[in-house]
């Protein structure tokens, strides 16, 4: 149980760092696609008998390369390319997995994770991934922040949007690959997005967004594991559900704060309709 909590806390911090940029840049759909893109890689790894992490990494790489090719060669919008590859990879993963004798059990483990089955070797690997993700985010924080505002602004500031966009995606892919064994491929998006979205409700700086996200992720891990243990529920799903509940709670707190502010005669900026001095020209 302690090992599981330790593993989920590492996942929470890794997801907080990558998730902050996913939320700021609006990459949630890409994150979801990456999470599902790893399924066929893991399925092949399980069938053939090599490392599931390596299979997941190959799956994520194929997913991103495929999105790039469809996007560039066929003039389709990015969300269409992602949607196409996303369902294709998931379907392929299930087909490959169906060849396995222990189909249902393996697929469940891939999709929903095995929080209670993590080992020290998993934790070491997750720790290495955490250091790598934090390192990349720190070194590339400036182009990553510029990308969250505008690609043109990024390019005219001397940073290649394509290069740093790809590095950001690689960082998200590494996060997914490092986290899927703990919370599963279906639920890793929840850990990427829910804590970071909560952070974005309160944070005014990227560092604050990441810190709030990490705290929300860690608390979700503890409460989720506790609830799953006592109520005999699925651990990964409980953790992610608590993370989403915490976002809802934060949103309610903010709304109540605004309502109280209005009652005291303080108008919140959100109460102003955005009709004056708009710049959509």
């Amino acid at each position, binding site marked *: 149980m302690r090992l599981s909590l330790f593993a989920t806390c590492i996942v929470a911090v890794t997801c907080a760092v990558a998730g902050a940029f996913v939320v700021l840049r609006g990459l949630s759909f890409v994150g979801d696609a990456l999470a599902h893109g790893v399924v066929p890689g893991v399925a092949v790894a399980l069938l053939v008998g090599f490392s599931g992490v390596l299979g997941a990494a190959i799956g994520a790489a194929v997913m991103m390369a495929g999105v790039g090719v469809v996007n560039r060669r066929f003039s389709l919008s990015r969300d269409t390319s992602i949607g196409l590859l996303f369902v294709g990879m998931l379907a392929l993963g299930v087909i490959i997995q169906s060849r396995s004798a222990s189909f249902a059990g393996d697929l469940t483990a891939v999709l929903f994770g095995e929080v209670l089955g993590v080992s020290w070797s998993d934790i070491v690997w997750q720790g290495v991934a955490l250091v790598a993700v934090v390192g990349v985010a720190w070194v590339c924080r400036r182009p990553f922040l510029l990308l969250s505002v505008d690609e043109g602004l990024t390019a005219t500031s001397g940073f290649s949007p394509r290069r740093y966009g790809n590095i950001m995606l690689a960082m998200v892919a590494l996060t997914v690959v490092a986290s899927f064994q703990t919370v599963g491929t279906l639920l890793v998006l929840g850990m990427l997005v829910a804590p970071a979205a909560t952070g974005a409700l309160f944070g005014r700086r990227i560092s604050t967004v990441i810190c709030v996200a990490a705290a929300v992720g860690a608390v979700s891990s503890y409460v989720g594991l506790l609830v799953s243990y006592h109520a005999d529920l699925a651990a990964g799903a409980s953790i992610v559900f608590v993370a989403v509940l915490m976002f809802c709670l934060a949103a309610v707190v903010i709304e109540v704060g605004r309502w109280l502010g209005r009652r005291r005669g303080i108008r*919140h900026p959100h109460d102003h309709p955005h009709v004056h001095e708009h710049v959509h020209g």
Partner: protein
Amino acid sequence: MADDTRSIAAVSLAVGHGHRPVVDGVGFALFPGQMLVLIGTNGSGKSTLLKTLTGLLKPQGGDVFVLGERPGSQPARVAYLPQHPVSTYTLPLCVEDIVTMGRFARRGLLGRIDSDDRQVVRESMQRTGADEYAQRPLRDLSGGQQQRAHLAQVLARRSEVLLLDEPTAGLDVAGRRLVADLIAQERALGVTVVMATHEIGDADTADTVMLLAQRVVAQGPPDSALTDAALREVFRFTERH
């Protein structure tokens, strides 16, 4: 172009997206402190020309030099204000951090943002009035306040060339006057300005005006370029397309 004092020079320049030219035969030269105003309706080619000067689009023909080099090769010396940044209405980051991004071109990937940079950021926010809401998140501000924050970011770059895509669009009278004053101050410091706009009034103080309607309809000082016939052609372009 090594000993050339021109800030921007374009000769027979063709601009467009992909392989489709939007405007060709563009030629002009700007010296330090001068301003070129591009006037046209949506789709006339003014933003395309501006993006070519930033290096975001490759020229489709002819020659263009910005500060003696190919466009896009000197990010620390050229600042660009996009028409409307994409995530403006969802970004939780505070105005001060948005304006600080204006120093990234000079500091690069790992250079330290020092006290001088922070002073430049403060001054830039004061010049646009964005210092009043420096700690508020961008998404909570009105369109005009956001535009002031983006203008402050451009000023914080302390560049030699300003490329502004409709900086006054959607601003009220006070905001428009502020933009005009800021541009005049920058030009007095020797900064060269190219501004795309729908508004004829924005061209009053320009050295050169270029009227665009997927071709150069007229070009020259405001008094000679802004004729009734040229303006009719430029603004009828919208009705025809």
